[in-house]
């Protein structure tokens, strides 16, 4: 562990990193202790690696498996999978979990869901922890005041075998969002506005801490959305200092400490926020009051503009490579420069993904859909089975169904498009997910990233629509 003087002001990130640094190699990399490793079906390569080495997971009690990427959303058995190859992924996951003696929430479990929705929900994610998962959106979980980042399968095998990871310490960036968000503006809009400003490569090599009044005022659900999208700005991770909102959220969750241990934990957690006077390698400031509902027009999350805006002319970009990229994006998206986003015809709507599938997201969409009808095909995929049950208890499921939405079982679904839920070639989808990449939602699919309320508005009108008008 690095002894740091008590007097040196430190960042939230620095405190957690220092507390997990077992040693620093003379060459600069840190051997970092990982408190949690989360496993999903895609982790099968890491298990194959362990088996080849004749190793077993070293700390099974700190590893949790959750099936999400390949699970069907129209049934709760591997037999419901879209193809035999997809069913095999789900079964292999179960076999690997049994083999490793690992706690896991399989497809039929009441605790199942998208790993980044389930881990906070179950209290697996806690302030002050280091959390890894072989999924880039692991950054989501930093919302509770943790260092949480995505890794590859080689790194995953290393964590399973040793409960540690060699890492270079990232630089730090603070994103301060001050002021107050306007009506109908969400964490999704804040992040799309940020990524549009700093670019999809803008936070490369950095750990972001989100701060400012807007972030302080946010629920945990909204902070999870913020941190989730950090990776779309190329950040290593995103995080928010734990506060009373965090502690209220964590208290009573299944794997959270209780009684005397809760008090011990709280004493540690209260010391985590960034000290006054601590410095960041970069500072970015956003005026929350100036942010409008955002929508993407291209094939990178940085291609985002306010719904009141128009599709930019590729010629207006400063560099040659951006001009080329924009022209290529517009060709793929079948859009012309100067077109107004508001009113653009849409073929289908997807509400779901680790970005926007929590209870608050479903409430926001349902508030728009109440007593209205979708004009185009639309599906809702709750982020977890518990979110699904809660939404049913609150009457949200009924609102979605009455509006003509399909009410599905939880999973990654049409965001990763690995389970057979896809957007058809050439179809235009208003999606609450996180990536508008070429082919992300299926070969030839065209994605417009929006908030849940904006997705609901698009479903009603069949067009991209400024939700503030409805």
């Amino acid at each position: 562990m690095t002894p740091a003087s008590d007097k040196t002001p430190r960042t939230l990130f620095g405190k957690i990193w220092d507390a997990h640094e077992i040693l620093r190699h003379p060459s600069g990399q840190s051997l970092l202790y990982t408190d949690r490793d989360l496993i999903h079906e895609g982790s099968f390569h890491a298990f194959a690696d362990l088996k080849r080495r004749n190793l077993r997971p070293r700390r099974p009690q700190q590893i949790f498996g959750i099936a999400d990427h390949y699970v069907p959303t129209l049934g709760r058995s591997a037999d419901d999978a879209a193809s035999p190859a997809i069913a095999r992924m789900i079964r292999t996951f179960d076999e690997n979990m049994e083999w490793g003696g690992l706690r896991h929430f399989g497809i039929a479990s009441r605790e199942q869901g998208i790993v980044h929705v389930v881990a906070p929900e179950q209290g697996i994610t806690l302030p002050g922890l280091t959390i890894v998962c072989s999924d880039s959106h692991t950054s989501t979980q930093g919302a509770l005041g943790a260092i949480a980042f995505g890794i590859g399968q080689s790194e995953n095998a290393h964590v399973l075998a040793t409960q540690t990871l060699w890492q270079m310490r990232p630089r730090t960036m603070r994103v301060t969002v001050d002021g107050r968000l306007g009506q109908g503006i969400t964490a999704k809009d804040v992040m799309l506005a940020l990524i549009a400003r700093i670019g999809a490569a803008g936070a490369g090599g950095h750990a972001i801490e989100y701060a400012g009044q807007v972030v302080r005022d946010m629920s945990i659900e909204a902070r999870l959305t913020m941190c989730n999208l950090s990776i779309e700005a190329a950040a290593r991770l995103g995080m928010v200092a734990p506060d009373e909102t965090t502690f209220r959220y964590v208290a009573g969750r299944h794997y959270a400490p209780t009684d005397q241990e809760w008090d011990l934990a709280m004493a540690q957690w209260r010391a985590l926020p960034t000290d006054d006077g601590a410095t960041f390698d970069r500072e970015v400031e956003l005026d929350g009051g100036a942010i409008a509902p955002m929508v993407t027009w291209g094939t990178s999350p940085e291609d985002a503009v306010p719904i009141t805006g128009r599709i930019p002319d590729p010629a207006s970009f400063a560099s040659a490579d951006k001009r080329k990229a924009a022209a290529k994006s517009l060709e793929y998206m079948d859009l012309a420069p100067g077109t107004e986003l508001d009113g653009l015809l849409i073929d289908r709507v997807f509400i779901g993904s680790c970005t926007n599938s929590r209870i608050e997201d479903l409430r926001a969409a349902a508030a728009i859909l109440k007593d209205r009808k979708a004009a185009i095909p639309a599906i809702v995929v709750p982020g977890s089975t518990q979110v699904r049950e809660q939404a049913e208890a609150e009457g949200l499921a009924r609102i979605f169904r009455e509006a003509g939405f399909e009410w599905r079982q939880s999973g990654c679904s049409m965001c990763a498009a690995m389970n057979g839920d896809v957007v058809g070639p050439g179809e235009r989808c208003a999606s609450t997910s996180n990536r508008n990449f070429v082919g992300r939602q299926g070969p030839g699919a065209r994605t417009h990233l929006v908030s849940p309320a904006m997705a609901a508005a698009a479903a009603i009108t069949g067009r991209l629509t400024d939700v503030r008008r409805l």
Partner: protein
Amino acid sequence: MKAFTRETSTVAYVPGVNCDTDQIIPGRFLKADRAEGYDKFLFHDIRRDAAGNLDPRFPLNRPDAQGARILLVEDNFGCGSSREGAVYALADAGIRALLAPSFGDIFFNNALKNGIVPVRLPAAVCEAVADHLAADPQATVTVDLEAAQVILPGDLGAHPITIDAFARDCLLQGLDEIEMTFTYMDRIAAFEAERMARNPWLGR
């Protein structure tokens, strides 16, 4: 891991900023066992036309790109999904080094673990290499990890490879990281015991 000391090869230029790992390998191929070989998935969709045939305009489909073990790519290459399959596809296709202004962080680490050297070069240098290749497609580049430099064609000279010494040592020796970490197991166990004593709820 396959050791890397020095590689000299012709270079294929695959342009496009923010080339995400979904482009390098579409998600539907990630179910494949590694033993099956991932090379056939490399840039699968973007190297084909609408009918599914190889598009002769895509750089890697051109005759002069065959045999290239080094790729020149653009800013933020390998952003997006953490899928190591993107690196498997490159490695299985024989790619040993990548030149770009920047890489996605997770992709960068994944490459290093699979014996591929991602070389960060200033954007202007990358552009100069692209220009040079346009005039002389058979020009070669040497990635010399031992000397920690990349030797570019023509009068573009040598540039330092800025990879941390740890990763460089691992690559040069083809070290198995897990085996190496096991040599620190006493310190890991001691650290862990202290952490669990202070946070017993983490280890149940």
